[in-house]
Structures are given as C-alpha cells and as structure tokens.
C-alpha cells in the first residue's frame, strides 16, 4: 500500500474550503492598511518634486517682482547695471551667456558627434566602453576645478599662443588681443565641459539604429564613411539636435568655470577676446554682498530668466530625443 499522506477520504476535491472572509472582493477601501500607508508615503515623497518646482518658480517670480516693477521693460533691453544708482539692465549679461554658450556649442557639437561616431562606428566593440568612460570622466570633474585650470592654464595659454594668431583674422571677432580671460576662453572651457553630455546622447541615438541599416548601406557598395552618413547620421538628425539643445542648456547654466575665466566685465563687444560677463557669473559674484533689496531683486530676476530659458530648452530637447526613439522603434 502507498504511504498514508493522502487517504481517499481527504482527497483535494473534498477538503474543506479555506476561509477568505470578505477579502475576496478587492475594492480599494478593503486594501490592507499597510499598503495604503506605504502608497501614501511614496506618493507623498514623489509629490514633493512638482511642489518644489512650483515653489521655485513662484519664489523666483516673487523675488524678481520688485525689479520688474522698478526697471520695467528696460531690464531686458539695457546694458546699464548700476547697483548704486539702482539701474539694472541685463543685456550685457545675457549677451555674455548666449555668446559663450554659442561658442561652447560650436566646439562641443561637431567634436561630440565625431567622438560618438568614432566610438560607436569605428571602434572594436571591446574598446568602446573604455573610450566612452574616458570621455565621461570629463563630466565628473567639478566645475570649480575646470575654473581653476581655466584661469591658470588655459587663459595664459590663450594669451601667449592663440590670441596672437587669432588677431590676424580680419573681422570684428578677433579685433584685439586681451588677457586670456575672455568670452572665447569661457566658451571653449564650457565647450569642453558639455562635451560628455553631447557625446553620451549622440551615442544613445546612434546605437538605436539597427545594424542591418549599416549593412544595407555597405552592401550597396558604400565606403565606411558613406555607410555611416547614410544609415546613421541621416536618420539621427533630430536626435543630434536634441543632444545639442541639452548641451546648450547645460552651457547656459554653467557658473563657476565661467566666472573664473570670463573676465567679469559687463560690456557688450563683438571682440571675442575681450572680457565679458554672464547671467550666472553675475549672480555668483554679486549675490553674497548685495545689500539693497533692489539689487537682490535684480539678481533674482537674472536667476528667473535663467530658470525659464533652461526649462524651455530642456523640454525641447526631451521632446526631440523622445520622438527619435519612438520613430526608430518600428
């Protein structure tokens, strides 16, 4: 006879049914309280995020209000920044921010795309991670150290070796050599700093393209470069633009490295070798010592402008990268 674990009398079909009580009906109010507490806890924590963002927007707007009221529209259109006379015009700072970011983008853009291509297309698979990692260590380096290097290494180098060459170029951009602390130096340093961002996003975009596309191009008798151009670069254009916009967003907000190499002179000039100043740099330099409420409000207003611009750019970039990822998926 077999073991007595199950006897005919207590076969599964005739065992008494276990009692679940009322819990079989899983309505929300019947959820165990542990679950509700936990869900509330994590949802609350998550809710802090939009709250903070909204609070930031609000507080910045409120803090800037005095300035907008007193300065009016002239705040956006005049250069004159005089804390003593309580005249505040942000144009010079805005120019410095935009110009240095443009330079940064012009350097980081092509180089970042080129490096991303070199890594995804022209490197043996086993070396790819190392190469990417090397460029990404650039992104780990703190901004203040870039500023230090920029001040004491890059700027003197620019003054001694690069500016004397650049002044030979005709036109308004390189009219007169300076001290090395300039719009150009700031742009280049920031360009180096945003390089990893541009490169990383481009890599993502390029890797999303299936190998069969590249092979199809090669099978038509294209050279390696032509295959990359056809199969990788052409469909990646929106993604690359997204990478550039993200890089731009970072460049606009870059503070320490800029303030240490830009020369800190609030003047608009087409000469890239002249000193300049940026929105973030102005805030960094002046906020701690600003005494009058008007001055503080003006600086907060600069921050508010920065906040809005970077938020818009970020949204645009995310939309583009998202659109590319979705298109390639089918």
């Amino acid at each position: 006879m077999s073991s007595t674990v199950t006897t005919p009398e207590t076969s599964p079909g005739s065992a008494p049914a276990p009692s679940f009580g009322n819990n079989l009906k899983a309505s929300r109010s019947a959820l165990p309280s542990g679950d509700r507490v936990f869900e509330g806890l994590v949802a609350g924590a998550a809710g802090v995020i939009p709250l903070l963002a909204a609070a930031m927007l609000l507080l910045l707007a409120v803090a800037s209000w005095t300035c907008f009221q007193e300065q009016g529209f002239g705040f956006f259109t005049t250069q004159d920044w005089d804390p003593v006379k309580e005249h505040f015009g942000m144009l010079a700072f805005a120019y410095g921010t935009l110009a240095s970011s443009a330079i940064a983008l012009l350097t980081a853009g092509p180089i970042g795309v080129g490096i991303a291509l070199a890594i995804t297309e022209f490197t043996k698979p086993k070396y790819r991670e190392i190469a990417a990692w090397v460029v990404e260590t650039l992104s780990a380096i703190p901004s203040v150290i870039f500023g230090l290097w920029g001040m004491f290494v890059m700027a003197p180098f620019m003054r001694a070796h690069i500016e004397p060459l650049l002044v030979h170029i005709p036109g308004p951009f390189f009219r007169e050599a300076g001290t090395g602390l300039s719009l150009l130096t700031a742009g280049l340093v920031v360009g180096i700093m945003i390089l990893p961002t541009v490169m990383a996003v481009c890599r993502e975009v390029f890797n999303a393209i299936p190998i069969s596309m590249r092979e199809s191009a090669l099978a038509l008798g294209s050279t390696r470069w032509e295959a990359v151009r056809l199969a990788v670069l052409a469909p990646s254009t929106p993604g690359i633009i997204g990478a550039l916009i993200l890089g731009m967003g970072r460049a606009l907000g870059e503070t320490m490295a800029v303030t240490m190499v830009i020369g800190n002179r609030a003047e608009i000039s087409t000469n890239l070798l002249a000193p300049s100043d940026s929105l973030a740099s102005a805030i960094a330099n002046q906020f701690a010592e600003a005494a009058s409420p008007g001055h503080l409000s003006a600086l907060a207003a600069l921050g508010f402008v920065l906040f809005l611009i970077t938020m818009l750019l970020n949204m645009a970039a995310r939309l583009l990268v998202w659109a590319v990822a979705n298109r390639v998926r089918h």
Partner: protein
Amino acid sequence: MPPEEPVSTDTMEKEAKQRTVAPPMVTARAPQVPDQGQAGGDKDQVKIQVHGLNAWFGEKQVLHDVNFKVVEHQVTAMIGPSGCGKSTLIRCLNRMHETVSGAELKGSIRYENQEILAPDVDPVAVRRRIGMVFQKPTPFPTLTIFENVAVGMRLHGIHDQKLVTATVERSLRGAALWDEVKDVLHKPGGSLSGGQQQRLCIARALAIETDVLLLDEPCSALDPISTAKVEELLFELKNKYTIVIVTHNMQQAARVSERTVFMLNGKLIEYGPTDKMFTAPDNRLTEDYITGRFG
C-alpha cells in the same frame, strides 16, 4: 545575354563590360584550376567559383573548406539548419563577412575569373557587382522611395538626372514594384508595407551595376502573399541576373532554385541540381535533413 548597363563614361567599367561578353571556354583541365569552365553541362557558365573557403569569427571557425560554383542566370539556394553557416557563406560572396569585428576569411572566391579576395581588390567595388538583400527590409527612413532606389547610383557618382530617373524606373519595374509606387515616389521609404519594402530593397540593389543578387532569407519577415510575390519576382530576375538565396524553408528552395547547396556545421555536405537533391540526394545527411529528421 549581358544585363542592361546604364551608360557611363568610366573607362574601367567599359573594360569590365567587354570581359563579361567573352564566350565561355571549354577546358579539360582538372577542377583544381578553376576557370570559366563548367560544373556540369556545356551551356552552364560559372559566375562565381568558391574554392577552399574557410571563415572564422575570432577563434571560432564557422566555415570549413567549402567548394562550389554559382552558375549564371540560375537560382542557387542554400539550405541547412540554424547555425550551419549558410548566412556566413553568402556574406562571404560579397565580402560582407569581414565587416564584423574579428571576422576572418581564407580561400578563393572567383567572380568571372577575378579573385575577389585578392589584397588589391576594393570590397566597395565588389559590392557594386554583387548586391545583397537582407532578411529584414531596410529602406532608408529619411529618403523617399525614389531616393532609396537612386542612392546606390549617387554613391557611385552618377548624377545625371535623366539617367538616374530612367534607372530608378527600370529597377522598380524589375522588382515588380513600379505600378504600386509610381505615383508616390516622393513618399518616405518607410511608408510601404513589409513586402513592398523588401521589393524596394531589391530594386535598390538592382539599380547599381549588379549582376549577381544575394538574398539572405528575404522572405522570413514577410507574409505568405508577399513571399509569393518575391518568389515570382525571382523567376523573372534570373533571366538577367544570377541569384543566390539562403532560405530555411525547404519548400521555397525546391520551388525557386535550379541548384541547391546543403550546409551543416560549417561544411558543405552536398551541392547539385535541386531536383536531384530533393529526390535522390547522394549524401545520407542531406536525405535526413530533407526528410525532416533534424533541423
């Protein structure tokens, strides 16, 4: 008869054209010295001759001493279970195998009496003559249907608008797609159905100076109706081109090909006329595979 060629002023191409018109030679030489001789039958002209081909991916050898011939204006099918090396083999024929990192190739592949594995041969130029269509249809998404077909020509420096337009039409007709797309040539390549996309890829391959078309499981991703259309197309195409097709579908191989190659574990087990292979194969392994005993 030689395929139609777009008119070109390139002297190199003129010389090449002259060579393809040369009459086949009958030789009594031993098979080790491959020439424009035959496999079996005086009227069969050999287009591609593979001899002693070995291939590796890194340390792993994936093709072992493969020998066979591809006969002009015929469809040669390559069959075998997954992983037998048939895809690798077909990709050697247009030197696509080496595009994978760590891949290596040794042996001889002769195309019209020219060794394509020779060191001074540019793989880019080889692929212009020996075209390939892949398993997954890959029209370039940012190009229009027209531009997709024209892209090969533009790469090779042909910019004469009239010539390009004429060739695009000819290629689309050759791929049995013209009637379906002639009014929507400006639409993006990705807007077609799967079967149409695959025929677009075929048209794209035909638009350059191909005279050999390699197809790596071209119908695997297609529905039965599209598959039937592509098979029909192959019947027409072989009048002008030479076709090699890899397929995991034996019935397809039996339907479309004149000759079949059976591969197993990187070795060529048997090669010969399709009807013979499928009814009275020489090799026991071939018979086992055909009757479904494995794979």
